[in-house]
């Protein structure tokens, strides 16, 4: 059973620029994943408004009945979030690794246009390696 169900990357205006599914039941179609991504973007923003204290930077972890959603927002407003099994550990670390891969293989790619969907082969390859490594590490424990 996969520990990670899917990965989303959304740009600073809430548009989905990358989505990868690692085996969740009942695949979502493209329209649904775009809607879910922009919905998450707004929920993230609203959660900051409802904070009882100053300095809130949005939802980091959402615990649902059947999955956990870990979200990481970069300083530029790009959001990375993974959907994984409840109770999966070390997802913050994985998100940082994915962010690093994004800066290395997407942002440094001269053919990549900012805020546009990611189509970079090297990013795909390294991403699947990172996820695989994470899965192996989970199996080892």
């Amino acid at each position: 059973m996969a520990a990670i169900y899917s990965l989303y990357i959304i740009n600073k205006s809430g548009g989905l620029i990358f989505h990868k599914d690692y085996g969740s039941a009942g695949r979502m179609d493209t329209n649904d994943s775009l809607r879910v991504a922009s919905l998450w973007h707004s929920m993230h923003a609203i959660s900051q408004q409802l904070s009882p204290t100053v300095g809130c930077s949005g939802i980091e972890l959402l615990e649902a009945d059947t999955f956990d959603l870990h979200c990481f927002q970069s300083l530029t407003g790009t959001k990375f979030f993974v959907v994984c099994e409840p109770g999966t550990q070390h997802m913050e670390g994985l998100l940082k690794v994915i962010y690093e891969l994004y800066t290395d293989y997407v942002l440094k790619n001269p053919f990549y246009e900012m805020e546009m969907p990611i189509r970079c082969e090297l990013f795909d390859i390294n991403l699947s390696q990172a996820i695989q490594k994470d899965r192996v590490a989970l199996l080892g424990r």
Partner: protein
Amino acid sequence: MQFFGGSDISPSPPPPTASGHNAHMMYIFNRSGICLLYREWNRPLHTLNAQQDHKLMFGLLFSLKSLTAKMDPTSADKGNLGVPQLPGQGCSFHSFRTNTYKLSFMETPSGMKIILLTHPRTGDLRESLKYIYNLYVEYVVKNPLYAPGTPIRCDLFNTSLDQYVRSIS
């Protein structure tokens, strides 16, 4: 349970994990989104007026619920995004955490929503919310002067709630 003056609440409250008082505020909404109760213990920041704040909170929970129902990776038939779900239907959520607070959420089968905001490093509060629901049943539902669907004004409920919330960490 005695008929009159019974003060035993079942089940007994979950044991406090640490002493402290780091609850920020609590909301209770009924199934149609009316805020029945709003209690505030520690809230330095107010961004909106009370009514707008309640509306925004209810909207956030409603949308998050439709998001989790749509995202549920374990079921194949998830329906359409944004279609209202009955209480208990579809995949719901029990908490989310930001860097400044943790929101714990419970929905009863009747559609009532109990929301508690605490310090981000608080543990699992699902049992505590169930206990708060029991307090509501004992002190509000069984109060003959309380009309369902109206804001809760029961001193006994408020004091026991304050006392209990102070004991959870």
